[in-house]
């Protein structure tokens, strides 16, 4: 191969490689099932506005998202709980600096089957149901029906938040059925008369019923709505987080800025969460 041919080949290869690597930016988002519908909607609108961008959103739970974040297999971890100190230590050990962004708030919602005549419960009653102390709906003003309790798995941020803020850190009863995703809780509660579960407000559908909750031992009951959460009347409100590595700022910032923008926050409301 003479010198000229070699030079041409080199130029062609350089141009080809430049085109190969100039693919549209691809962003991976993984984690909380609570944040999932919001991220999906935001990503969908964002990709329409920025056709060159590609965003993949996967659920699995806050724990799964943060584990993927630690492994470097996701660019953004969605979480419905704060990052744990043990996870911070792992990031520090790996020399990874990270940023935490609150993108919205959620009203954690206790749900029952629409055929259940119980409309309201105190925090103490919910706790007693989940620790297995109250086993029949008639004990809280309902029909003589066995209570079937549904919960998320322990890898879920919602599981931990519920345990800490509703159950006063008490243990779930062995009879509680642990579900792998929020969608399965919605489905199970909609199909089972005696069922009770808890979900993010955005998952609320017509085939399930939200329960009004009292945090003052039955004096006042508050319905889980965006308005009540915003006015801080509803007591079980929690922030929803995005976590990303500082070094990935260039890749993730445009999308996060969009989520935090007025337009992005409009989507927050549409999906059923509480804006910042």
């Amino acid at each position, binding site marked *: 191969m003479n010198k000229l041919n070699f030079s041409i080949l080199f130029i062609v290869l350089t141009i080809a490689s430049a085109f190969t690597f100039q693919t549209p930016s691809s962003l991976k988002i993984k984690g909380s099932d609570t944040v999932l519908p919001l991220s999906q909607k935001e990503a969908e609108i964002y990709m329409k506005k920025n056709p060159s961008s590609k965003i993949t959103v996967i659920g699995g739970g806050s724990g799964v998202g943060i584990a993927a974040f630690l492994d470097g297999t996701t660019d953004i971890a969605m979480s419905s709980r*704060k990052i*744990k*100190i*043990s996870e*911070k230590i792992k990031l*520090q050990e790996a*020399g990874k600096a990270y940023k935490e962004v609150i993108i919205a708030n959620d009203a954690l919602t206790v749900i029952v089957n629409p055929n259940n005549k119980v409309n309201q419960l105190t925090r103490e009653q919910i706790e007693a149901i989940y620790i297995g102390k109250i086993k029949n709906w008639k004990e809280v003003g309902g029909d003589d029906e066995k209570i079937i309790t549904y919960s998320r798995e322990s890898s879920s941020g919602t599981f931990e938040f519920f345990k800490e803020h509703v159950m006063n850190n*008490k243990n779930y009863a062995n009879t509680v059925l642990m579900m792998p995703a929020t969608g399965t809780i919605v489905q199970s509660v909609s199909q089972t008369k005696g069922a009770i579960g808890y979900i993010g407000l955005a998952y609320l559908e017509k085939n399930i019923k939200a329960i009004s909750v009292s945090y003052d031992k039955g004096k006042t009951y508050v319905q889980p709505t965006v308005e009540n959460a915003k006015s801080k009347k509803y007591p079980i409100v929690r922030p929803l987080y995005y976590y990303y590595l500082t070094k990935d700022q260039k890749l993730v910032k445009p999308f996060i800025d969009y989520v935090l923008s007025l337009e992005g926050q409009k989507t927050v409301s549409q999906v059923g969460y509480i804006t910042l």
Partner: protein
Amino acid sequence: MKLIKSLLFVSTFLVVNTFLFSQEEELNPIDTLGIAVNKIQSELYILKKLKISGYTQVQYQIADTAGISSYAGGNFPTAVDNRFDVRRGRLKLTYESGLTQSVIQFDITQRGASFKDVFVKVAEPWIGFITLTGGIFSRPISFENEYSSSVRETPERSRIVQLILPGERDLGAKLSFQAPKSSKWNILKLEGGLFNGTGLAGTNDFDSFKDFIGNIGINKTTKNEKTNYGLRFSYYNGGIKQGNKFVYKTIDEIAPGVKSWIVDSSTSNLNGKARREYFAGDFQLNWDLPIGFSVLRAEYLTGYQTGSAASSTSPNTGTAPTGDTYIRPFNGGYIMLAQNILQSKHQLVIKYDWYDPNTEVSKDEIGKPGSKLTATDIKYSTIGIGWNYRVNTNIKFSLYYDLVTNETSQNLAAYSTDLKDNVWTIRMQYKF
């Protein structure tokens, strides 16, 4: 007959093929993808049970003097004051299936290949409260003893841990009691086990005395996930076969100002049990501060250590001692602060550790003629200062300086002044 066989073969082949092709024709791309995903999922499920991990540490060290005795990675050979070394080359295979786990870990360096861990762990299936571990694994005493070298902030463990618990591991079995993560009692952990007491290098036990190790500890994180602390108390009660009838366990004043070992030479001492008893407490604090993550650790060990005239090191061999037995009251420990610089990749470390092998004597009392108190009874302390740079998940660079100070005695010529045995360590680690 041959013809019938051939016809039968051809017809079977055609039927099977037709069936297969007709099956393939019915599959649409989504079905094909589903089958492929299922196949990959089931293969991944099996593969995920096996975890391969490890790390390699390569270092260059400079000592103050050639041929020094050192706990900063082992003694320097005579006439050598600087060296390259593959300090650790670990390969760990972990197989996990449900409530069972099996671990094998090798150490491969220029010194050869050896094993480090070989154990089986089984959890009870009802509430996952009790775990049984059996094989060769880290003794459940001292935080630093059990803490992996791949994540430790300092290149080596403290002198006392290296001497009292050489090789970190022993052959035995232990029971661990800890409530599941979902329980509020998960913060509490209780462990107890029986061990040979011969250490990692002890291929078989040399006596019938089994050593008990037990501990109780808590580990708690504050609600805001900013602070985590752990506190644990451990107890070791074992024994070592006395190699002959001469046992030294009492120190008395034999003349004004002269302390000496008093020998007990009862014939019943031969093959008797020499005391090996430790009390230990360790504390860890991880604190997420605005200036960066802080790690504070402290440990204190005290008790009675059986050794020889020349050494206070615990056994790490399968050969029974044959010489005189010395039982020394000892103490030691360390305090360490590691401060991360904001959220950067940099971490600064400062550590102080000490080891007093014989708390009954000090300074000029050691080495007096007729006292039998020797260099083995000299106290050491070390100040370590270091810097760690974590490039990424895999690579870490460390620079560390060990400033070693020994007790001096005018009655021991070699220890009349502080020895020149400080060491610089520059290390590169790859972890996977």
